[in-house]
């Protein structure tokens, strides 16, 4: 292979071509207003919950080529998750009700972070909780841990101390959890927004004001599926979160809308399965993207998407990825 030229089968285009990639600048700063910043080599990240702790995929693909890895949703204490079945395939995607089964933050620090510390690819720890204190305690434990490059807050959890209202559907609660976490960490914090709201712009502005360094959007869309032979819901937890290509236009719309009102970087997520999908998000205003369900269908999806973005840039004579961010805003 000639230096700087890679041959690949491109996603969304079924032809093999040579791409000159060594002159491209795909670097992206995800936390410009944070003292340390969070610079990624490229904009392709993996979405929480679909990529484990990264270790599971390390023997399968070259994970060090990714922009960043967002690990499995992590809580202060281990969680057992929901009963089976946890997955239902639907047209254009997937409903899941895993229920945040995870090993807990202490085990992450003990067993996973030391491995991450030897990696070139930054790992962002996704944190979930049921009270503000839980979020803050879990994030505080990660302070100064080598191998952890940032925090992503999953605010789609019900707040049990205020009657189970999801943090992510209430601007005040979303802001409270964001500022509580910001107060206990020196790491960059991105907040992952729920799409199950009336006005996502309001939540985005609230977390921006509360100090979020970046916003990732969207989390899964609430859904249900019925097993007509058993005459009951398919999922053990009755309802679940919808992901996959079916939610892409929703996610894209939300990125498009939020990009108009906030001044911190956005990370687009929702049904991205090829480079063209990722580029749509970037053109709507996302500085980076997260690939989720597509990892299950094709473990190479994220890397294929990265190569496809490079090809597009090379093909169109675009040297800086930044020149594409938000260009489709009208």
């Amino acid at each position, binding site marked *: 292979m000639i230096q700087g030229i890679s041959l690949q089968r491109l996603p969304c285009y079924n032809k093999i071509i040579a791409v000159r990639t060594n002159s491209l600048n795909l670097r992206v700063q995800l936390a410009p207003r944070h003292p340390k910043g969070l610079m990624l080599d490229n904009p392709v990240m993996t979405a929480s919950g679909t990529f*484990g702790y990264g270790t599971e995929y390390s*023997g399968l693909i070259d994970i060090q080529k990714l922009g960043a890895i967002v690990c*499995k949703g992590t809580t202060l204490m281990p969680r057992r*998750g929901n*009963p089976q079945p946890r997955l239902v395939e639907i047209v254009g995607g997937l409903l*899941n009700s895993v229920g945040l089964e995870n090993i807990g933050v202490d085990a992450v620090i003990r067993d996973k972070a030391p491995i991450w510390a030897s990696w070139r690819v930054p790992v962002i720890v996704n944190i979930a909780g049921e009270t503000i204190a839980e979020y803050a305690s879990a994030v505080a434990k990660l302070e100064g841990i080598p191998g952890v490059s940032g925090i992503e807050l999953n605010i789609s959890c019900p707040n049990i101390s205020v009657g189970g209202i999801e943090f992510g559907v209430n601007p005040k609660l979303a802001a409270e959890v964001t500022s509580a976490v910001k107060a206990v960490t020196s790491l960059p914090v991105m907040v992952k927004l729920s799409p199950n709201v009336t006005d996502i712009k309001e939540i985005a502005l609230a977390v921006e004001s509360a100090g979020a360094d970046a916003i990732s959007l969207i989390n899964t869309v609430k859904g249900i599926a019925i097993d007509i032979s058993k005459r009951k819901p398919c999922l053990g937890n009755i309802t679940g979160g919808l992901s996959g290509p079916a939610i892409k236009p929703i996610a894209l719309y939300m990125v498009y809308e939020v990009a108009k009102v906030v001044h911190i970087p956005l990370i687009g997520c929702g049904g991205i399965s090829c480079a063209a999908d990722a580029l749509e998000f970037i053109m709507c205003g996302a500085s980076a993207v997260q690939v989720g369900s597509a990892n299950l269908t094709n*473990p190479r999806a994220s890397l294929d998407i990265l190569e496809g973005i490079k090809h597009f840039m090379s093909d169109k004579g675009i040297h800086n990825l930044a020149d594409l961010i938000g260009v489709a805003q009208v």
Partner: protein
Amino acid sequence: MKQSLCAITSNVEISPGIHLMWLEAPDIAAIAQPGQFITVRCEGLALRRPFSIHQVVIASEAKQSQVAILFKVVGKGTLWLSQHQRGDKVDILGLLGNGFSVGPSSRNLLLVAGGIGIAPLVFLARSASPQHAITLIYGASTAKELYPFSSLPLTLNPSPSKGEGKGEGEKRSNLLSLPDSVRFIPVTEDGSIGKKGMVTDILPDFLGWAEQVYACGPIDMYKTMANMSLRAKRSNLKVRMCQVSLEVRMGCGIGACYGCTINTRKGLKKVCHDGPVFELDDILWEEVSI
């Protein structure tokens, strides 16, 4: 573990709705153990479909080594796969999971197959060493649904209708024979061949003989066996050291997504990564609704 495009070398419908597919997969063939599996990406579907390894052929030219999967067309994924033919390439992820294990001192192995659950047990039967005595109890609803082993009397096979002679020839050349040492006991619900009833009806007759039991079949079969095992604890007739292969809906297949987690007596286990083979007694069957 590797993701690769593998060429289909043959795809034969060996009995109505049941396909035997051979794939050129040298890396998988070289290391596969009975009970392990691969996943196949099916066009337009979010979830890859898991298939246990049914058989392996190591070719003298290593690159041509093949694995076979055996599947029943039950939904979109298996329908899509069943329509592919020799020369087509499919996206395979493997080798995945942990297979069956045979204890060093075990001699008498009882294999219990329900329906398409025969798939990994043929591989196990053929992998056993000459020192093992194997009994295979194999149940299906009717004779036509039994895997038509080539060494069995022709009456076991659906007779070829006129004009299908060539197809039948291809079928037979693809079929496997069981080693002579395997004692084969068919059971059918309609009694069209072998004993009439369910495999679990005759299972107790063999429990005194078997040193290890290996099962693959529907969940209800496992539940019956688990009840038998509980009852047997009060007698001397126990389903001893029984390993079962579980199938639940899987996401990633590599232990990353937690989509297939089940609760066991040994804690939460990911079927794809910690299984799919588990000890019968470790599964909390009352919680299993898969």
